[in-house]
């Protein structure tokens, strides 16, 4: 089968390259717009989503953790992240895991180069916004007690050691581990959300709980900000998911619709669960459901149909709610803003369900067992493999990154007094709101 496919690819390749090596202004316009949309998700969407949930004494620090992570991670992406993720290593053994260092500082990429039907430069920037949001997601687990200096070192190292290799393995093209296995991850369920969410949990455990966790009331600064953040995330997510079709085309249309359906259904689901269990529908609940739905549909966006989007949306909220309300209490970790509970678990659900619910449609599917032979069980096992590989790499990589960062900055945690005063004042010398 593989041989047959290789022949098929060889036959098809010259035609494809010829056809795709022409710049399409519609595709280019959409990809530039998508880049701007994904960018909005981090320093506006995620930053507000998180800030609203933190205590007021740490609100400004939370925003800075997200925005600081974004700017630094993007710079690191240009320096070497892109090369490690999307470069092509000469040795096959290296290519399995990383793309090498041939494109460090974008060396070797000309402004006239095309990635399909739009400029490679646009692809670099588009993917850079993904790299930057992924580590920013993890910040939600450690707000209120991690040193900002440690966080900045974590961000820089993590982008190279964890994010870029995982991106390469999943999306890095021929020779990359999970790409060759045929893993389906449309826009980053494993690469971005599982990855960022699990990194958050690992950091939360390593840096320890906030002082007074589960003893004192830790009331959110403003749920309104969180809700606005969720709305901006949703808006930007059209670039994230529909942009991951890499063109202004019908597949982007599929992703746009499934993203909207799953998200709306997930928002409703979370609201209903809370209403049923706690007798009150909460705004934080609706906002959480929206984000859980967005995360869950991400790996599946361009692969599933309307029914699939419904199932993924409902399940995303159910499993997210379970993570946040049940798992967190059971294992007593302080995943402060639930990066793990929502991003990892809903991402995991989405990644696995992509294997189950992907339409058997040759024009939508990527190469993999399902496309080649209609082997759904085989596809599901590939999804399981991708989840395990990404999980293991993130786990080990994040532990290493944290210990190095902690050693370089003299401990990863602020002192007790700074934590008590609040990180806004003790780290930044600013306040989130002067009333």
């Amino acid at each position, binding site marked *: 089968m593989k041989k047959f496919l290789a022949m098929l690819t060889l036959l098809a390749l010259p035609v494809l390259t010829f056809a795709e090596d022409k710049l399409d202004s519609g595709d280019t316009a959409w990809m530039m717009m998508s880049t701007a949309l994904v960018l909005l998700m981090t320093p506006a969407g995620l930053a507000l989503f998180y800030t609203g*949930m933190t205590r007021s004494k740490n609100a400004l620090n939370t925003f800075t953790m997200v925005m600081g992570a974004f700017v630094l991670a993007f710079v690191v992406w240009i320096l070497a992240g892109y090369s490690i993720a999307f470069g092509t290593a000469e040795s096959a053994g290296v290519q399995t895991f990383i793309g090498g260092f041939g494109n460090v500082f974008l060396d070797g990429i000309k402004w006239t180069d095309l990635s399909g039907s739009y400029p490679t430069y646009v692809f670099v920037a588009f993917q850079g916004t993904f790299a930057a949001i992924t580590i920013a997601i993890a910040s939600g687990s450690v707000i209120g007690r991690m040193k900002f200096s440690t966080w900045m070192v974590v961000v820089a190292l993590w982008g190279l050691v964890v994010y870029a290799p995982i991106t390469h393995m999943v999306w890095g093209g021929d020779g990359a581990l999970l790409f060759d296995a045929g893993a389906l991850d449309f826009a980053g369920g494993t690469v971005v959300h599982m990855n960022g969410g699990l990194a958050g949990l690992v950091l939360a455990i390593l840096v320890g709980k906030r002082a007074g966790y589960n003893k004192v*009331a*830790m*009331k*959110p600064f403003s*749920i309104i900000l969180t809700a606005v953040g969720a709305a901006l995330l949703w808006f930007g997510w059209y670039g994230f998911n529909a942009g991951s079709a890499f063109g202004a085309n019908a597949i982007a249309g599929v992703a746009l619709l499934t993203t909207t359906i799953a998200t709306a259904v997930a928002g409703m689901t979370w609201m209903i669960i*809370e209403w049923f269990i*706690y007798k*009150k529908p*909460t705004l*934080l*609940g609706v906002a*959480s459901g929206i984000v859980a739905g967005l995360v869950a549909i991400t790996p599946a966006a361009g692969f599933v149909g309307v029914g699939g989007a419904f199932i993924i949306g409902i399940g995303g909220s159910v499993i997210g*709610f379970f993570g*946040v*309300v049940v798992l967190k*209490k059971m294992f007593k970790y302080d995943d402060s803003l*639930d990066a793990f509970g929502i991003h990892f678990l809903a991402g995991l659900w989405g990644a696995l369900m992509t294997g189950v619910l992907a339409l058997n449609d040759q024009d939508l599917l990527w190469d993999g067992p399902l496309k080649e032979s209609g082997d759904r069980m085989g596809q599901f096992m590939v999804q399981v493999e991708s989840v395990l590989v990404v999980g293991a790499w993130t786990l080990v990589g994040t532990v290493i990154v944290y210990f190095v960062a902690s050693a370089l900055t003299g401990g990863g945690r602020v002192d007790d007094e700074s934590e008590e005063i609040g990180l806004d004042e003790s780290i930044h010398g600013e306040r989130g709101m002067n009333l």
Partner: protein
Amino acid sequence: MKKIEAIIKPFKLEDVKEALVEAGIEGMTISEVKGYGRQQGHSELYRGAEYVVEFIPKVKIEIVVSSQEFADTAVNAIKEAAHTGKIGDGKIFVSDISSVVRVRTGETDEEAL
């Protein structure tokens, strides 16, 4: 001279004020306070994490009147206007006042009221 302190539900303040004005009480001091009695607190729920808010907002009205008669009138006015019949309607305290001074004129006691 008597001082009346009434702790009431904040949304009843306008009704109580009108009732006191109708009863001939010309001045009052109010403050926003927090506390709890039989009503206890309420709880807030964020992603399943429950926080009990023990102290709930109330309004405290303070009035000083010249006689027991006026005090009774005021107490009745407040009692009727602030009443909802539910737990948490509040309490009224009456106490003696030994002296009063009007700052502007230097008048004392009943004349100062």
